[in-house]
């Protein structure tokens, strides 16, 4: 009974340990105190009922009662009897707590404050788990099953947290589980009474049993399987294999509805995917008092990697700490720059991203909580945990307009400036270098160079808009685009960014919505309004947007004084589509691009828009692993074939030297004997041995019994007697036996005899006599080789075990246990 009581307490402690993951949800530790109280009450009730030897169901009832009592005491409704005994009013209170906990779970983000409802459901859940664990462990003696309810606790923070959960709480829970298992096992062993060795020495409780080695082996295999299986299964994302296989190009493809980390969203893939969607759906509604708003912007791709442009992981302070104001920063160079403050209100309809779309540059926000941070460099609002889904917020922003003169006056970026490394690195591509060199010759300042590149993407130069193109932004894709001159916004933006970077000016790709579907001051932005453009950094001024995509193909395209539409030079450079975009009636604006895009959409399969890495690579891995496996399987057969070839070469060589010796040994008998040198004798012996070994291996391969107590002669006789060989093979096997016995026991080995031929004929005869399965096994997995390897492995392991045993004995000499007084000396 003592063991059971002990086990019950261990179960309670293990449950508390398993509840450790809850700490990631709560801000404070109140929940732990309450859970400890509840679990302690349950353990006490269980111990009491066990003391009375109550049946298992009674134990369960008592634990439920203890849970109820504990909850009543911790979460009183004020209607209890003696402030302890629950009344119907208490239960109603519990019901309301449960109901409100559901709402609170939805409305509060982690880490939550101490809310009664959430604390209640936590204590209830942990208490329930404690009851189940106790019943499973002590009542049914199945502690392994108790891992399942413990895992249920762990699944709560996993479900709550959008990003990954720290592994430490899980380790704590796992330690509790292991403790439970060990305690149960020790208890089980104690049931047998004292353990002692054959020589009467007591065995310590924690000393492993002789079966421990098998257990360890099983555990290692289990862990290996648990680690390897997810690697091999392709469906599991972010596994090691998918990392290896796809190089990160297609991962985190930012499917709407999945949060994902802001640094890992593949913006290009999402952009082309949304643009190619056949149905049109509203994503964002924005209301602003800006008469001519620029694009609603949410993300940038500023990091150049192997597969093209991608987002850097943003860094910044929570928005609740305030946002920088661009007006403060460049006060001294405000000549030519007009900054106007406006206000906007955004309602997200169907847009789930770790970013919030805003107009640049926001200076203050409302209804955006501390989970959201602002990266002043990237000028994006992002969150590591929350998603933009269904958010409604408003902000004030400052729109800047620049005169070409102001931009032209901007000084060149200092060579040692950090931005140069961050924003001007591109992969060197010869075609691009030539093009940039041609475009920027004779241009004196950054703005002129950028304009030259910007103006290059014009209809004059043959550029046109089409959605059904490969959307990649790696070096080869850019060259393809510059050659084919057909693409959509993301290629235009990426290509211009690339070229500008090539010219030595910092640039990045920005993502957002064009302004369309205007009704009064409200714009309804759909997936077709998603857009990408280029932002160029001018020293002292900041990031200045340039949209190289042909304006005619984009609804709500916005052209500025510093970046006029190159396709419409006859229009005045102001052409601020302030009127063009919005006034070009919303319906037409919505319809015309649709009309242009629809036919393309049908021929277009949405997947091709995703970055151009050539499909998943796991089939290749599977094939490679399969090939490797086949190779491994053929190793024994290969080894056998090589062995046979070597021996047959020996035998053949023996036959040929024999021929020559018998030739000069053809003197009349009795006159002179051929006196052979020792080396020749040794060689003849070795040849015969090789032939015999080959015969024995062949016998083993074909599953013919080989008896170490049999002489070669007896073996040969047996083979003949048992009818395993026939005809010429009989003589062949006798010849082999004779050669071997002569080689082993006679003064002189047999010096003539076609041993190779004999071997071949015996092998043929054995093969003919064997059934198909034996033949197959002999050809593919020769038992002789496997057996030899197994023996070698056994010898090795025996040697190792012997060594470790000696080592352990030597260590035991120094063990302090030997001097313990209460231990018997032997």
């Amino acid at each position, binding site marked *: 009974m003592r063991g059971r009581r002990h086990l019950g307490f261990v179960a309670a402690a293990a449950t508390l340990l398993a509840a450790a993951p809850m700490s990631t949800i709560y801000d404070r530790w109140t929940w732990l105190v309450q859970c400890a109280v509840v679990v302690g009450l349950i353990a006490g009730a269980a111990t009491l009922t066990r003391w009375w030897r109550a049946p298992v169901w009674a134990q369960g009832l008592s634990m439920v009662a203890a849970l109820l009592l504990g909850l009543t005491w911790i979460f009183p409704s004020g209607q209890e009897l003696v402030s302890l005994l629950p009344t119907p009013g208490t239960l109603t209170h519990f019901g309301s707590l449960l109901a409100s906990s559901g709402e609170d779970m939805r409305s509060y983000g982690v880490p939550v404050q101490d809310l009664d409802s959430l604390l209640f459901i936590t204590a209830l859940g942990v208490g329930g788990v404690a009851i189940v664990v106790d019943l499973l462990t002590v009542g049914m003696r199945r502690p392994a099953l108790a891992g399942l309810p413990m895992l249920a606790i762990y699944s709560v923070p996993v479900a709550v947290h959008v990003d990954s959960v720290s592994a430490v709480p899980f380790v704590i829970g796992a330690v509790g589980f292991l403790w439970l298992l060990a305690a149960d096992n020790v208890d089980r062993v104690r049931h047998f009474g004292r353990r002692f060795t054959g020589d009467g020495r007591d065995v310590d409780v924690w000393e492993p049993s002789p079966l421990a080695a098998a257990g360890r082996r099983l555990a290692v295999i289990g862990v290996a399987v648990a680690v390897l299986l997810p690697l091999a299964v392709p469906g599991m994302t972010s596994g090691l294999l998918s990392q290896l296989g796809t190089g990160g190009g297609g991962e985190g493809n930012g499917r709407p509805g999945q949060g994902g980390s802001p640094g890992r969203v593949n913006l290009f893939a999402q952009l082309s995917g949304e643009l190619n969607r056949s149905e049109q759906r509203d994503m964002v509604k924005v209301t602003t008092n800006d008469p001519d708003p620029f694009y609603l912007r949410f993300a940038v791709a500023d990091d150049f990697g192997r597969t093209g442009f991608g987002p850097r992981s943003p860094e910044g302070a929570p928005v609740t700490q305030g946002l920088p104001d661009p007006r403060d920063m460049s006060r001294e160079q405000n000549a030519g720059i007009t900054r106007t403050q406006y206000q906007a209100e955004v309602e997200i309809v169907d847009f789930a991203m770790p970013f919030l779309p805003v107009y640049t540059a926001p200076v203050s926000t409302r209804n955006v909580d501390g989970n959201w941070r602002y990266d002043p460099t990237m000028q994006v609002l992002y969150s590591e945990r929350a998603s933009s889904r269904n958010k409604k917020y408003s902000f004030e922003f400052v729109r800047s307009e620049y005169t070409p003169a102001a931009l032209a006056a901007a000084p060149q970026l200092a060579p040692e400036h950090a931005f140069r490394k961050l924003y001007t690195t591109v992969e060197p591509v010869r075609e691009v270098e030539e093009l940039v060199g041609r475009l920027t010759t004779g241009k004196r300042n950054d703005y002129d160079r950028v304009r030259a590149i910007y103006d290059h993407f014009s209809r004059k130069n043959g550029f046109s808009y089409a959605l059904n193109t490969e959307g990649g932004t790696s070096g080869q894709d850019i060259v393809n685009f510059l050659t084919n001159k057909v693409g959509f916004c993301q290629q235009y933006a990426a290509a211009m960014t690339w070229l500008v970077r090539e010219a030595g000016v910092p640039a990045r790709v920005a993502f957002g919505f064009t302004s369309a579907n205007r009704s009064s001051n409200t714009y309804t932005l759909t997936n077709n309004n998603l857009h990408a453009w280029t932002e160029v950094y001018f020293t002292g001024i900041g990031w200045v947007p340039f949209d190289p995509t042909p304006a005619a193909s984009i609804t709500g395209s916005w052209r500025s004084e510093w970046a006029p539409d190159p396709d419409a030079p006859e229009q005045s450079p102001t052409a601020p589509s302030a009127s063009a975009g919005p006034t070009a009636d919303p319906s037409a604006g919505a319809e015309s691009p649709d009309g242009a895009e629809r036919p393309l959409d049908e021929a277009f399969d949405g997947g091709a828009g995703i970055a151009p890495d050539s499909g998943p690579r796991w089939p290749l891995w599977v094939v490679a692993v399969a090939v490797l496996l086949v190779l491994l399987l053929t190793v024994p057969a290969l080894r056998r074939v090589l062995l046979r070839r070597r021996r047959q070469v020996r035998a053949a060589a023996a036959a040929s030297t024999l021929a020559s010796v018998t030739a000069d040994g053809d003197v009349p008998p009795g006159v002179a004997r051929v006196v052979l040198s020792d080396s020749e004798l040794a060689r003849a012996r070795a040849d015969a041995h090789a032939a015999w070994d080959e015969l024995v291996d062949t016998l083993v391969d074909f599953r013919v019994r080989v008896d170490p107590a049999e002489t070669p002669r007896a073996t040969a006789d047996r083979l003949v007697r048992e009818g395993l060989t026939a005809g010429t093979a009989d003589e062949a096997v006798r010849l082999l036996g004779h050669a071997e016995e002569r080689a082993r*026991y006679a003064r002189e080995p047999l010096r003539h005899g076609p041993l190779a031929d004999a071997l071949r004929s015996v092998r043929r005869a054995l093969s003919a006599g064997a059934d198909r399965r034996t033949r197959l096994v002999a050809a593919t997995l020769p038992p002789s080789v496997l057996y030899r390897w197994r023996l070698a492995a056994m010898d090795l392991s025996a040697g190792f075990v012997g060594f470790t045993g000696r080592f352990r004995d030597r260590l035991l000499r120094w063990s302090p246990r030997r001097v313990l007084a209460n231990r018997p000396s032997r």
Partner: protein
Amino acid sequence: MTQQTWDELGGTLPSDQFRAASDAIVANIEEVIEGKTATVRLALAVLLAEGHLLIEDVPGVGKTKLAKALARSIDCSVRRIQFTPDLLPSDVTGVSVYNQETHDFEFKPGAVFANLVVGDEINRASPKTQSALLECMEERQVTVDGVTYELQTPFMVIATQNPIEMEGTYPLPEAQRDRFTARIAMGYPDPGAELAMLDVHGGRDPIHELRPVSDAATVRKLIATVRDVHVADAVKQYAVDLVTATRESPDLRLGASPRATLQLLRTARAVAALEGRDYVLPDDLQALAVPVLAHRVIPTADAQLARRTTDAIVSELVHRLALPHERQRSPYDTRPPSGDGTGRSQYEPRRR
């Protein structure tokens, strides 16, 4: 087939002559004993191995006839002793008699002073008389009254005994049994041989017409040839293993003696030579293990209760004992290597 071209005084015979001489003896004996070639050859092998032969079988199967036929086939001195309970040691070894004429004791040689001594029903003599053979069989000399007399070469004792009737008999002591190189059983002839025997033996006993086909000198040469047969180290090791196995077998109270090892190898040489080989094979040892070893060992009480004869025990040992490999450990031999160099036995009961 190859080596012995050199011929020395009293030396060896070339193999063709050896074969001719041995075949002649065997054929001669077979004129009397039909259908027992293996037994006859074994008897001859014991002679060539300079050993002594114990023929043990039920009465009437030709024990004495075999002994006599072997004796008559060789032109040498043959003496026959009929062992009876009242036979005295001096009848065997000889006795010093006072000569009236010379006024001196004169040694009258006993029956053992011959090349071939046939002892019939040896277990009927008293142990005292049986013991008279101890010295002469092993040391080939007789000591009477402090004078030692050398016996001639070849010297061979062929004794017969009857294992069935134990009444009035004295079983051979262990020391005596150990001096016999081999014990053979005649066994009943097969029906064909028995039929032929009826024709041949119907009228007269053909043993009287048996003519010697060899003489003592030839036998000496044959013995010299046998001594020259090559024994590889592996075969020696196998012989030692075999004998050690009898000593370590759980079924045997007493194993074979080192003399047994020696005689096993000698007999194996003779058998190999009779088969025309100049080297000994483990097969020879395997074939000889039962005749040479079985009568020297004593089974445990358990084995006796289980009605296991020493023949069965020894032949089982032979079947289990692995051949020693002079070059390497057999890859299919899963037992731990006995590499301590002390010649520890590899014997281990076979697991089935």
